[in-house]
């Protein structure tokens, strides 16, 4: 078996790697790069726990062979926060208590991120369709749907809060 040289951008950082071809993107993220935020669930593309963005679109990282991401751009849940500041979507998940056991959360965040990046004000049907490939074993779907729908509002509120704080000082 040959090894393959790949160059891939993950969370805005460029990686040059030598990898075995029989490794999935999921295994590469978790085992080779220590990016364990992406979870390993069913490994057959049914549960969505391993969802990442590949060139801006949600995919099951368990169904992508690592060499296939050569030259591509990947974003994992670790790429959402900017430094210590959470993504508005993550803030909204906290506001809505949309995290129970947390196992599905990284995958659902990435499916939702894929949606919100392309449509800023999605309908409930669009939200539910966007996360239809993600299972939540705690069945906390309602809070998750609410959190995604309100994510934009969370940004606006934060903005207001900041403006308010600025005028106070």
């Amino acid at each position, binding site marked *: 078996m*040959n090894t393959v040289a790949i160059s891939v951008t993950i969370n805005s950082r460029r990686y040059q790697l030598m990898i075995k071809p029989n490794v999935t993107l999921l295994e590469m993220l978790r085992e080779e790069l220590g990016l364990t935020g992406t979870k390993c669930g069913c490994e057959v*593309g049914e549960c969505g726990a391993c969802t990442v963005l590949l060139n801006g679109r949600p995919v099951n990282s368990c*169904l992508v062979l690592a060499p296939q991401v050569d030259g591509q751009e990947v974003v994992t849940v670790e790429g959402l926060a900017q430094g210590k500041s959470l993504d508005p979507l993550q803030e909204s998940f906290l506001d809505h208590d949309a995290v129970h056991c947390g196992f599905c959360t990284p995958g659902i965040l990435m499916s939702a991120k894929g949606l919100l990046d392309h449509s800023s004000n999605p309908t409930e049907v669009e939200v539910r369709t966007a996360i239809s490939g993600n299972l939540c074993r705690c069945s906390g779907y309602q809070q998750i749907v609410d959190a995604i729908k309100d994510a934009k509002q969370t940004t606006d509120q934060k903005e207001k809060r900041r403006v308010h704080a600025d005028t106070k000082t």
Partner: protein
Amino acid sequence: MKPFDYFSPASLTEACGVLAQSGNDARILAGGTDVLVELRKPSAHSPKSIIDISRILSLKGITETGDSIVIGALTTHDEIYRSQLVARYASLLRSAVATIGSPQIRNRGTIGGNIMNAAACADTVPPLLALNAHITLKSVSGERELALADFFVKPYVTIARKDEVLTGIRFPKLDPGVRSSFVKLGRRNALSISRLSVAVVLRINSANVIEEVRIVPGAAFPSWQRVGEAEELLVGQHPSREAFIKAGKKVSEIMISYSGRRWSTEYKEPVVAVLVRRALELCVSQEKTA
């Protein structure tokens, strides 16, 4: 996953060359939504080589040439769903790809993979047969185009040779005014495998008489086929619930003539009939586009 040699040809010519040299023990990888699941099965025979064609950009995209639409084999289900050309000239195909897997699967899975995997439940196949689609296969020894209707032998078996790669799918545009539909029954909406599906193309003339109809059930026959016997019942008739019920029952009858009565027949017999009626009714309820 067991070890394998990995090739990622940059062009179609290179891909055909690698395929010709790899003999019988190579597997073509495109979107990977079926192949990776297979590769991970511990029991499965694993191929010696994986030939990843996902980099061959010439196999991607949807174009129109005269009266036809051509879809590159590597075009994803999501790209088909978002195509204006498909929405306009083959709306039943758009309805079908919308039901495949999940958003994640639709972003990776390709139409070429769906055809070549040849599962009895492949959701793009009934619409493509109802569209009279042709496919193009390429190898080092040349290129051939054949009717999709002649391509399948039985589930998971096609007449493609081991050294051939599917490059594209071509079908005539549906005329404006011709209606089409796809209905599917699965255990749930997302990530469900078709238990049964039906694709229909229906042409009704200005005197409200059915001029042409094509009915292709999915996951019903040993291999896909149009059901001419049911189509004949409808041609020359006015569209009506009674006529559609009769056609549905005929499809069901023909299905059983192939499959015999088995454990699932009690369920499938009425369900196929209803799905056929619903698919036909869905066509009639559509606004004419021209």
